[in-house]
Every structure is written in C-alpha cells, then in structure tokens.
C-alpha cells in the first residue's frame, strides 16, 4: 500500500518506454523503504530541486573507495531513506552475467539494502542504490565470501576499468579487451580501493576505432584496437554487396528505403583519405594512406576485415568539461601489442610512468589531461621518454615560441654583457 501520494511521478507510468516508477512501486511491496524513495522523489518533482544532502564519507574498513555516502535532507518525512548509501560492485568485464550469480546479488541486496540498482553506473559498475551504514560491512563480507566479488572505485583513485564486448561477440576486436580490462583491474586492486591520486583516473578498453565504450572521450588512459597491415578484402563478397545481395552495414538502415547500394557513393566517396578505388570491378585500397577509420569495414563487414597484425593505439587525457573544458584523449603511442602472455608489460610500464609523473606534478583535483595541457605535450613526451612523432599533432604549431633548452644551443646561455658592449655601443 502506497505510503505517499505521488501524482507527479504517476504521470511517468504512462507511455511505451519502461517506467522506473512502476518498477519502484513493484519493489516497494517487498522493500518498504522504496515508498520513501518515491516520496522524496515526488517532493523533488514538486519542489524542482534535490533533497539529498551534500556528501558524507562512509566506506568499509581499509578501503577509501567503492561506497558513496548519501543522506536525505528530510529524514523525518522519509525515514526509509535517511541513510541511502551507494555500493559500487566491480562489474565483470563487458557485463556478461550468469543468472545464478545475479540472483545471489539480488538476494543479498534484498536483505542488505533498498532493492534498487543501476545496471550500470556511468563508469561501468553494478550499482546498488541505497543502504544504511550498519549494512555496509556485512554486505561486503557476503559479497567477498559468498560470491568472490569485490567493490569498484570511487574518489581520487583508479576508477573501475571497463571494456567493450570485444572478441566475445564482435568481429572487429583487434585485441583481447576483456583480458586487458580484467588483467589490469586485478593488478591494480590497491589503486582502485585506496585513493592516492590527485584525482580520478580511468582506463577504458575498446577493441577497434568505433570505440563502443567511448574511451577516447572519457578515459585518462584509452586503449583502442587497431592494425598496421592491410585490410583483408574478399573480392567475391565485395561483388555481392555491389549486386545488392547483402545489406549494407549489416542491415543497420533496414527500416528505410535508401535505394540500391552504391559502393562509389556509400564507401569510396566517404573514405576520409580517398584511398579506395574500383579497378575493373575489384575494390582497391591504398593501405599506406588508410587511417583505419572503420567506415568501409562497418558498411561491408562480410567483404572487409581489419588486418591481422593487430594491437592498440594508446591515447591519454580525456575528460568531461569540469573544469578546464572537455578534452579528448591525445594520441601518445601509435601502435602497441597488447599481450596477455607478458601481462601487458609495455602498457603497464607506460601506466606507471604516467602515474609517477602525475602524482608528482598534478595539482589537487587535476585530471591528467589537464596536467598535460598545463605543462605541455612536449614535456609529457619527454618525461614518458617517447620520441616526438608527426602523428602526435594534427598540425605543427603556428607560433614560434619554442622553449629551447640551454644544452640545445651552441655555447650555452652564459654570456658576458661587458664583452658584448665592447662591440656594440648603447
């Protein structure tokens, strides 16, 4: 039986999209604190403002991340949500689940919390939404003992890494995103659970330049699959696409009649480098001029495939606008082999070099991309001991204000002004 009238929220039970309000009411029959979620949310809908208090530091012993404290500013009206902390569970790589495991999570959460969740939080965690401080330790105990399942990150630490579905169900994956995500998650448990950084740091692993986990926009360290040999072509299948026997882009445009497939217009003319042509009915790719954007492969996946000498491009420093403005990740290493066999040795070495530098020079609450911008890409490359490449920039600088170093200039900077004056009167 509803505890609070919710006329505004009830409007969100209408319409074809699944309603979180209907769902909350359903859960409230089993978890009475959900009535107070509905009640407080209705009050926010009426007042047009949040009713959650600022912050609150809670956690489990020994961890500085994984739990986000939350308290109601109207606990008298809504005692069920007076304490309403969030628990971040580290999701399995690429978010496949076995139902017996999920059901156990549900059973624990039914006993220990509100019964509401997010599948998933923006960074990728499985989020359990709303519990009291006294339930945190028993919940953590049950998760680790009964399910072998740990918390994710929050605060100024390594945030829970995430990856695309990769080789599990995608033909484009150029390296094993799950293995990299899981391997580095396990290697850096301490960095995930105990904040020691200037601010948050995110890893995201995408298997190809389509970047389905938005790593180039969201991660401090972005690992995006690519290849350095030739795109594989099956000319017989190209002909089938040209004859309209296979739908373009896996039938992604199937609900609208765009007319007959035109390889010239839809593939060759849209290639950003113009490196494709038709030669006597055969598709030719000038691979030396290809920038591996994926468009031709996306449109004709049965005729074209990434090459076989695969690895990843490493980019660094993406973030949302807070504070200095949004940044995409900057290309740092054009090609790196991502190899589970050597425990991602090269990548690990780079990561730790970046952390060492950022922890030394980064300001409080400064993302590494902002540190890079403040101190400059040349400085960053020098500290990382990386050779400067034309690939590092879209274009060379247009100002002449180079920070020359003394050792680069013949004779150094020490000069005698008196000797100078002997030859040059004032």
């Amino acid at each position, binding site marked *: 039986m509803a505890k609070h009238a919710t006329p505004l929220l009830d409007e969100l039970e209408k319409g074809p999209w*699944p309603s979180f309000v209907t769902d909350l009411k359903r859960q409230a029959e089993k978890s009475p604190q959900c009535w107070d979620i509905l009640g407080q949310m209705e009050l926010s809908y009426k007042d047009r403002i949040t009713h959650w208090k600022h912050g609150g530091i809670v956690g489990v012993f*020994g961890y500085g991340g994984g739990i986000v404290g939350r308290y109601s500013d109207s606990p008298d009206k809504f005692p069920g949500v007076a304490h309403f902390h969030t628990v971040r569970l580290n999701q399995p790589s690429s978010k496949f689940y076995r139902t017996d495991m999920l059901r156990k999570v549900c059973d624990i959460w039914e006993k220990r919390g509100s019964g509401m969740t997010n599948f*998933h939080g923006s960074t990728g965690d499985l989020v359990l939404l709303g519990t009291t401080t006294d339930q945190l330790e028993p919940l953590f105990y049950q998760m680790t003992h009964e399910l072998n399942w740990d918390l994710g990150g929050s605060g100024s630490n390594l945030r829970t890494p995430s990856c695309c579905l990769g080789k599990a169900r995608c033909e484009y994956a150029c390296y094993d995103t799950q293995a990299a995500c899981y391997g580095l998650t396990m290697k850096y448990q301490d960095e995930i659970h105990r904040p020691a950084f200037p601010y948050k740091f995110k890893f995201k692993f995408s298997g190809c330049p*389509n970047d389905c986990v938005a790593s180039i926009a969201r991660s401090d360290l972005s690992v995006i699959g690519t290849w350095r040999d030739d795109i594989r072509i099956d000319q017989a299948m190209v002909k089938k696409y040209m004859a309209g026997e296979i739908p373009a882009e896996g039938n992604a445009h199937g609900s609208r009649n765009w007319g007959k497939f035109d390889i010239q217009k839809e593939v060759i003319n849209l290639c950003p480098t113009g490196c494709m042509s038709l030669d006597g009915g055969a598709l030719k790719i000038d691979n030396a001029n290809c920038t591996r954007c994926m468009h031709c492969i996306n449109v004709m996946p049965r005729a074209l495939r990434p090459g076989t000498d695969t690895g990843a491009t490493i980019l660094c420093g993406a973030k949302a606008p807070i504070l200095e403005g949004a940044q995409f990740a900057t290309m740092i290493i054009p090609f790196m082999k991502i190899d589970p066999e050597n425990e991602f040795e090269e990548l690990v070495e780079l990561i730790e070099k970046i952390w060492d530098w950022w922890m030394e020079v980064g300001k409080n609450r400064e993302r590494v991309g902002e540190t890079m911008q403040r101190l400059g890409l040349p400085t960053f490359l020098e500290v990382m001991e990386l050779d400067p490449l034309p690939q590092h920039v879209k274009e060379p600088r247009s100002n002449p204000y180079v920070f020359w170093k003394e050792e680069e200039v013949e004779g150094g900077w020490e000069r005698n002004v008196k000797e100078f004056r002997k030859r040059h009167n004032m």
Partner: protein
Amino acid sequence: MAYDPNNPMADRITDIGPPHYEQMFPPVIKNNYGKWLYHEILQPGVLVHVSETGDECYTVRVGSARLISIEHVRELCDIADKHCGGYLRFTTRNNVEFMVDSKAKVKPLLDDLASRGNKFPVGGTGAGVTNIVHTQGWVHCHTPATDASGVVKAVMDELFEYFTSMSLPAQVRIALACCLNMCGAVHASDIAILGIHRKPPMIDHDTITGVCELPLAIAACPLGAIKPAKATLANGDEIKTVSVNAERCMFCGNCYTMCPSMPLADPEGDGIAILVGGKVSNSKSAPKFSKLVIPYLPNHPPRWPEVVQSVKKILVAYAKNANKYERLGEWAERIGWEKFFEACDIPFTIKSIDDYRLAYNTWRTTTQFKFTSHVK
C-alpha cells in the same frame, strides 16, 4: 562462517576484484571467442553473429530504465533461464541482451518478451535511437540541476518509434547528465541533455566553519570568483568565510562539490541545456564535442515538455535532411551551423558563442559563410 559484527576484521577478504568474465559467458560465446566473422541485424533489436566455426549467436536487445529493481533483475533472470541457458548481458548504453544459439529460439523469446507489457521493448540497433545513457538526478544525487530518470523516460516515450526502427541516416546517441560534472559524459553525444544552474552559490556563513576547508573552496573556482572574506554571525562571532564575485560565476558548481555551505541549486535557476553534434567513434570523421545550441529550458516535471519537443525537433530535422551514414554533427558541419539553426528552427542566441577557454578556436575567421535568415 558468517559475518561477526563484534569482530568485523576476522576472516577478511579484500582486493579480489570482480568475478572472472569467462565464467559469465554462455557456451556459444565461450566456444567462439575471437572467431566471429560477421553480423547482421535481422530486424530492429535482433542481431545474428556468425562464427568461423559455423556457430551462430542470435541476440535480442531490449531497452531498460537503468534504474531497476531486483524484482526486475529477477524477471530478466527468469527470461534468461527459460530461453538462454541462464546467461544475459548488458550493453554500455544500459540495454539488456538475451542471446540464443539457434534461430528457432528467437521467436519464442520475442513472444515471451512481448507478453510482459512494456517492460522489455525490443530495439536499439542500427540507424536508430538507442537507450539514453544518464546519471542519477533527483533519485540519488546531491548536486543535480535536473532529474535524470524522469527526463529520460519522457524523451524515450516520445522517441519510441526510433528505438524500434532503423530509419535514421545513422545511429543517434542521446545522453543526459544532470549537472556540469557530467557523470554521464555527454560532451561527445549526438544529442546531449545537460542540467545547468543559473544562480551563483549562496554562502551559508553559519555552517561554513565546520564543514568547509576554505582554501579548497577558493581553489575550486576556475575563474577566481571566490575570495577569502570575514563575516559576523548573529551571535557576534567573527568568522573566516568566503565571498563570491557573482559576475564572474559561470555556474559550474565546482565550489559546491568542495564546500557544502555553498549550495547553488534552485527551482527557477536550474534547467536544461541542449548540446548536439558530438560523436565518439573515429569512423569517417574524428571524434567531436557536442555544441551548445539551446542554452536553457526550464525544469518542468513530470514530463519536461520543452525538452522533449526540442529533442524531437532536432531529430526530425536531421532525419529529413542528412545523408545516409551522416552523423548529426557531420550533417551540421556539412551544411554549416548557421544552416543547422535554420533547419531545426532553433533561435540562435549569444549564449552559443564561446567565451570560455580556447573560445577563439570556434570564432569564424573567414569570409566563407552562408547567408541565412539570421543576417538582416
């Protein structure tokens, strides 16, 4: 041994990470790991992936509210147990995917999903609108300028036909973040719905001493608008506090993140901005940021009609005018942003002209432009 509240550190297990992904894979995924050849979308929301082993994996993708109950999760598990051997997955955009290993199993699964009301809409594939990634909003966040789940529900109700079809020029990624912290990272979305504040922070001198580290609050302001100050409380105590130069404030809310005594949320001040034309993929053109085209729309719960109609208007203009494969931002760049405002019937305001960091990069420094109705 069960948890002992008197001895919480006994038998403690830490730093074990998530369960290994492989134990979560259904057999068809495990057996064909790294062997997939190609995929095809059989109908909106239904995909087939074909392996070099000859195996096929059929996937049915359904929308979800993201904010879901364990009762809902249990129902997802019931469906997966009945049809999918006890496995399922979630996408990065909060859709649920049910996978089966033969075509014969697809229809019973679709029929079952359809029999359960509107809880499991099938779609979200190809050149359509897929699920909206979003943040917490009023259901759980302490800094939002708008709600998240309610706005998403209202927008998805209106755009439902684009979720269940593939009739757009390309995929359209919509995202919502309920404040400028952008937990939802909406800065590279085709259409971004962003909660914004428009009133500078208040300063609660009565509480600031106990809860706020003043140097951090001062340093939090990217524009140097916060300065150390003194105030006299009602009881006569003189305290150290801060003052805000409101003219310099750009309403980012970073001060409130650092200092609970500087709240800025407000029913009249807060609302929603619309940014468009971003993308993450490297396909064809490089990744792009979303650009601010509507600076403010009011918070009108429960269904945010102004926001819903604005998003719809942009989407319809894009659907009508863009070329096949062209993302929203690619279309806007091809026709020119001056034409974009005209095509979408959105008034251009001075708020769309950048005056923050690197603003100059967006100012026009050529004689090349198109004459539109804006030029009188």
